[in-house]
């Protein structure tokens, strides 16, 4: 292949290094009104009344809307493809503004004003009377028999419960000579922290409500806005310009439905609704905290006889993506090591905390930590080699998951492990570091993962693409799939250029999505776009190419089947001599007086397959025992994501994911006041985001397989790099100190208690 596989520069890089790339906040009219949401200052209760008198007196206030004014419609926010089957539809459990308050920060009123300062001032003057209930701030409290009900539709606070069993766990664990190992593992609430805050603006044009928003999923947000307002899909138009990161937070309708409603309230005038960083932390979405109890029965030959998992997921106040995440987690538990009898049970539970939604790798970083920590607990107790044990039990080529039916079409995991092992000299160092004394110790750790590509067969996978020829032989490439920083536009352009036979400069990607114009696609999530949307590009490019060749055949009076396109020229199949330039064909096809044809193509792809990508993280750390601090000395992620379309952007994705994984393992967690439920560290100083100084050099390697189901042999890549990092660090600490810490982050506070309990303070 000429273009695919090359480390090409991003198609949007120049726009972004010159400041010309337009984000939502750069497009808003200077005359827009400003909306400010009033958030509840209690976590659990009921709004009884408002006193708006002082707020109305603030000069410049245009409108004040409260939870008593909005349509009596409960709507779902999750960025899932809509299911036409009622039982599979997302849970509709919130209104535009809520009378029943379910977390500290719930949306209860909004002010529209001439400017931002006025809106802030008016909100500060609204007085609220609440009926207050005891905040329920943990899964345990929510499940207590005496717990009050957060949503009346779910009296026991359980959003969803699910279970599965492959083989008979009870029978399998009766086998003679098994070693039982069990552990409890816990992951924290963290946040996406995309640099651009939650933001949108809305106005009315030609009878439609237009919402310009920093979203990953414009077509889904259109559906959610329509549902929330009780209008038709066609009455809503969503425009998505460049966005400042997403990581799953924007795989949800956030400010858009209320923003759409607010412009209606003021006759279609432009209204801007931009959250502050603090609101973006507390009032958008967070990652689900999860708790796992894992029990394993291992044979003396190092294979699993039986395993079980019990998982609890903290949903927070509203369902959002709900049970899909912990279901993914317990499924991941099964798929990674599909050996012996396996049973899983999972609960998603409402609490009075901020709403948890999608975040990079969708439940798998949670189970990845628990499972890979557990594997190292097993090898420590049994003395098995950590690599041999993993290789013996891990998923192999041809595996078909008995529940989801997803097949392993390709795997380079074994080679990934070998590459990482060799890079770090893991086995030798692990032995060398096993019995250290003294205050400063070193350790090495590893963790593997598997990850699906897209959401089939759980949900719909569909995508469309459009190509329109220009008179100079270049084309516009239009996707419903979204560029959110991951480099989607660049790989789509590469796919188009490769398949048609054009050079990259002939492909003009229209980066902005507009639901009135753009072909349909569900958007950026599940690491699906290069796989699912990429196939739509390939199909469209093939049709487009055929149309070009047909016209060239007409011009040359030759059979189009004997023609090919190479480097922007029409040639004889298998020959290089230029017969015509594509530019000449394009010009003639447009302006021909005898045979004018406007060449374009549009195809959709309904994907009905899935495939696993794989990878491993190896890390070497140094732990300062008196200071309770871990320093990462060396780290590598090795990935099998099938064929790599663009090595430059792929490496960037892996490094960004590794950094997020390091934050997850070492620093990040959201804290809440245990009396009120208020988020305590809702800003970028108190929330410990990875800075340049915290991040070591990040090493990346790929083992390329050629997946038969991917459009160009490719598999998921965007999310997976985050998964294996935290458990690799945890396992490195186990190697360094013998201390198994079963919850993250491994920050000094956590390490202090762990080291103290282990008696290592001298």
């Amino acid at each position, binding site marked *: 292949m000429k273009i695919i596989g090359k480390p090409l520069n991003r198609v949007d*890089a120049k726009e972004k290094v*010159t400041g010309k790339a337009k984000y939502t906040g750069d497009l808003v009219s200077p005359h827009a009104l400003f909306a400010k949401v009033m958030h509840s200052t209690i976590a659990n209760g009921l709004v009884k009344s408002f006193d708006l008198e002082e707020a109305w007196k603030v000069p410049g206030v245009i409108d004040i809307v409260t939870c008593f004014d909005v349509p009596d419609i409960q709507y779902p926010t999750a960025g899932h493809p809509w299911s036409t089957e009622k039982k599979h539809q997302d849970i509709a459990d919130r209104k535009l503004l809520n009378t029943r308050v379910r977390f500290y920060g719930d949306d209860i009123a909004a002010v529209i004003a001439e400017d931002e300062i006025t809106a802030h001032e008016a909100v500060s003057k609204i007085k609220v009377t609440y009926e207050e209930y005891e905040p329920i701030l943990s899964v345990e409290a929510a499940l207590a028999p005496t717990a009050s009900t957060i949503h009346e539709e779910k009296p026991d606070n359980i959003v969803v419960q699910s279970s599965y069993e492959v083989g008979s766990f009870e029978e399998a664990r009766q086998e003679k000579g098994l070693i039982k190992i069990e552990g409890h593992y816990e992951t924290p609430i963290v946040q996406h922290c995309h*640099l651009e805050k939650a933001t949108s603006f809305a106005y009315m044009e030609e009878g439609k409500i237009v919402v310009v928003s920093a979203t990953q999923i414009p077509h889904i947000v259109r559906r959610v806005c329509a549902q929330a307002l009780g209008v038709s899909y066609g009455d809503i138009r969503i425009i998505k310009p*460049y966005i400042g990161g997403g990581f799953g937070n924007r795989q949800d309708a956030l400010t858009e439905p209320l923003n759409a409603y607010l412009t209606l309230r003021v006759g279609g005038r432009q209204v801007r609704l931009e959250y502050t960083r603090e609101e973006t932390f507390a009032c958008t979405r967070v990652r689900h905290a999860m708790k796992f109890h894992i029990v394993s029965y291992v044979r003396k030959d190092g294979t699993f006889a039986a395993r079980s998992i019990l998982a609890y997921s903290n949903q927070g106040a509203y369902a959002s993506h709900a049970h899909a995440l912990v279901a993914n987690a317990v499924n991941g538990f099964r798929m990674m090591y599909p050996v012996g009898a396996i049973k899983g049970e999972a609960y998603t539970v409402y609490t009075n905390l901020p709403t948890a939604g999608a975040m990079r790798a969708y439940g798998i970083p949670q189970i990845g930590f628990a499972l890979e920590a557990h594997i190292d607990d097993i090898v420590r107790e049994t003395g098995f080699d950590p690599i041999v044990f993993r290789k013996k039990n891990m998923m192999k080529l041809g595996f078909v998951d008995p529940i989801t039916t997803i097949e392993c079409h390709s795997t380079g995991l074994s080679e990934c492990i070998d590459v990482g092992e060799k890079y770090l000299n893991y086995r030798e160092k692990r032995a060398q570091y096993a019995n250290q004394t003294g205050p400063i110790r070193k350790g090495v750790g590893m963790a593997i993962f598997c990850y699906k590509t897209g959401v089939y067969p759980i949900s719909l996978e569909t995508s469309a693409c459009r190509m329109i020829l220009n008179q100079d032989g270049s084309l516009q490439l239009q996707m419903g799939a979204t560029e959110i920083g991951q480099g989607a536009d660049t790989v789509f352009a590469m796919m188009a250029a490769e398949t048609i036979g054009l050079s990259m400069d002939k492909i003009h990607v229209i980066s902005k999505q507009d639901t009135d114009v753009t072909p349909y696609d569900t958007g950026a999530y599940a690491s699906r776009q290069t796989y699912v949307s990429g196939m739509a590009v390939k199909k469209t490019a093939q049709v487009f190419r055929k149309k070009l060749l047909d016209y060239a055949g007409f011009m040359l009076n030759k059979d189009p089947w004997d023609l090919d396109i190479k480097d922007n020229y029409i040639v004889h199949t298998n020959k290089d001599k230029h017969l015509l330039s594509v530019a000449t064909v394009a010009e003639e096809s447009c302006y021909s007086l005898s045979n004018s044809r406007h060449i374009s193509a549009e195809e959709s792809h309904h994907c009905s397959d899935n495939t696993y990508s794989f990878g491993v993280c190896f890390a070497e750390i140094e732990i300062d025992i008196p200071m309770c601090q871990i320093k990462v000395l060396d780290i590598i992620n090795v990935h099998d994501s099938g064929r790599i379309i663009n090595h430059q952007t792929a490496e960037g994705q892996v490094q960004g994911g590794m950094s997020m994984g390091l934050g997850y393992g070492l620093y990040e967690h959201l804290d809440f006041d245990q009396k009120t439920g208020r988020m305590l560290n809702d800003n970028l100083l108190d929330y410990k985001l990875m800075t*340049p100084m915290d991040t070591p050099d990040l090493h990346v390697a790929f083992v390329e397989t050629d997946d038969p189901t991917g459009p160009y042999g490719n598999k998921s890549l965007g999310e997976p790099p985050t998964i294996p990092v935290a458990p690799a660090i945890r396992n490195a600490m186990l190697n360094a100190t013998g201390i198994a810490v079963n919850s993250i982050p491994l920050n000094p506070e956590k390490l202090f208690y762990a080291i103290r309990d282990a008696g290592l303070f001298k």
Partner: protein
Amino acid sequence: MASRTVTCTINGSKKEYVIDVRSSLSDMLRGKGGLDSVKHGCDVGECGACTVLIDGQPFNSCIYLAVWAEGKTILTLEGLSDKKGTISDIQQAFIDEGAVQCGFCTPGFIMASIPIITKEEPASRDEIRKQVAGNLCRCTGYDKIINAIEKTQHKRIEEKMAK
């Protein structure tokens, strides 16, 4: 609301703006100057997305009052390209090294790197990290950003030595 006139040099041109005295410099640069490269990621000096140079030094323009800009020389990302739109070496390095993803932190990072790449002495990777520690990026893991700054600095030093 009190207004005041602020006179300063922005990207080489003398500018005079009537501003609300409560405005931040970032508000003035975006709102009056149309310089949209100046991004707001936190509004309180935590993220560095609004970094501009004031008399050659990087500042978070979101917590720098517009009235303080009186008489100052300000450089934003828009001022790095020449009049014909040719981009500077550091911008090209960000492209070539793959240091850009979502692009929202990019303007601030490039501006924060200017004092490093204009130094005569080469900085180590750790020193570069320290210099840009006030700028946050969630996409890249910083690796390629540090590469872009390091390579540009080395290139400039080599070019100077060749002369």
